[in-house]
């Protein structure tokens, strides 16, 4: 066999093998049972059993309609563009499972004008600002987030053994969550002794995904919690 022919044959075999492997890899990634391979990171704590489609829904319209709408928006013919491919995941998807009647910090409340500064810095009006998905954690916001809104914690009759004002002055914002559950979803009495508060390291561990440091039960388990293998907020 001529050397040139051999080289062409090897090249063809290489293309064939490469294409087959690439197709197999794409098929494996698109296979429904392997959908988590496509995720940008591990699911957050309590979400391990969720399907991609639980949050990621197709955007309205056909691909052509979406392209046309976005092109029109680009040329100023239309006021705003639309989602392309998949719908943007927002608060509505979170509320589908985590809606509670007595949330102490519901996301909508931060749409009030007076929260403009914290909207710019922390973004608490969006659930994903503090619970960024695919991070493998429970909470992605820092433990001292309370400092953004509660800089004035003077109380006429402060029930805490160490007054709140002193804690704020000492920049001890990591202690807040030791007594106050942000969403109020744990049934518990707020301690009046600082020593009885959950220590900051246990709060940090909870935000990372460990068990809750507070003694009370969950007031409102997330919907379908059993099926998802977790009911923490």
């Amino acid at each position, binding site marked *: 066999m001529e050397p040139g022919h051999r080289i062409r044959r090897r090249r063809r075999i290489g293309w064939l093998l490469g294409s087959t492997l690439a197709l197999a890899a794409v098929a494996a990634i698109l296979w429904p049972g392997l959908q988590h391979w496509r995720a940008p990171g591990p699911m957050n704590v309590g979400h391990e059993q969720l399907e991609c489609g639980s949050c990621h829904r197709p955007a*309205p319209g056909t691909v052509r309609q979406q392209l046309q*709408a976005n092109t029109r928006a680009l040329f100023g013919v239309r006021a705003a563009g639309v989602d392309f491919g998949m719908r943007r995941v927002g608060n509505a998807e979170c509320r589908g499972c985590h809606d509670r*009647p007595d949330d102490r910090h519901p996301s909508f*409340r931060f749409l009030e*004008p007076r929260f*403009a500064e914290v909207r710019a810095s922390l973004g608490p009006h969006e659930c994903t600002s503090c619970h960024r998905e695919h991070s493998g954690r429970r909470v992605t916001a820092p433990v001292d987030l309370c400092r953004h809104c*509660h800089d004035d914690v003077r109380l006429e009759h402060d029930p805490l053994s160490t007054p709140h004002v002193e804690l704020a002055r000492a920049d001890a914002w990591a202690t807040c969550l030791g007594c106050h559950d942000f969403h109020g979803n744990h049934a518990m009495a707020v301690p009046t002794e600082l020593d009885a508060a959950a220590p900051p390291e246990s709060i940090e561990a909870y935000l990372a995904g460990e068990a809750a440091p507070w003694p009370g039960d969950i007031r409102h388990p997330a919907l379908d919690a059993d099926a998802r293998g977790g009911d923490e907020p």
Partner: protein
Amino acid sequence: MRTLALVLATGTLGCLGIYLFATAPPALGEREATAHRIPIATVFELVAHENAVARALYTEQIVQAGMARGLRFSEDWREPAERAGPLPALYLRETGALLAQSPVELRLFLGSDRPINRANRFTGAQAAAFARVRETGAPVLAFADDTQLHTALFPDIAIARACADCHNDNADSPEHGWRVGDIMGATTWSYPRDSVTPEELVQILAALRGALHEAYAQYVDHLSELPDPPAIGDRWPREGYFLPSPEAFADEHARLASSATLATLLRTAGAP
């Protein structure tokens, strides 16, 4: 060769243009431009009226009259051990939360420059707007750039003795000299567009009434778990240890609010 490239490029651009612009399938979801749209200022006026009537009904006929009959109202009303109902400010907060769960995009908040809970104190542009409300007694409308929301502040007035007394007696209140008729704070309303269609206005009003009435129904549900709940039916606390049913409360609210609401709707419908 150059001619072929030119033909191909022109053909490709032509096809792309047709795909993106011409022979278009129905356009996606932009809101229909209707001949008649109702300005957001009128919407805010209507919802503020509906809310003010419900708040007055709840404060005077449920809280003030109920306290005289032995009913209790507390900040921690949801705690089973409290055996209490929501204070008027919390009734409004419940309404705001229920409204946020509805399909309409109207939002409702309550705040003050001298609230019992300092976390509810107005700051920044909202504080400046409230200063104008306090000075003039009239609502103030503005547009929030960051949220792209049209916003209106309406005065929240101490309509009953119970409002002033409760705030004056609270140890954490920064103000102890409230009197009936004072502007104690403001309700803040927001909506993302500068006008609505008549259909959208009806949906907004229905959602608000739904939230106002559901907030009261939640209180009645909570009370029914007590060992000695008041009789719930058609009678009101002014008549004894009674509470109106959610249906009776909703009917009374509709009776008190509908006339002015309808008058505004008819006036608006007649506008060009």
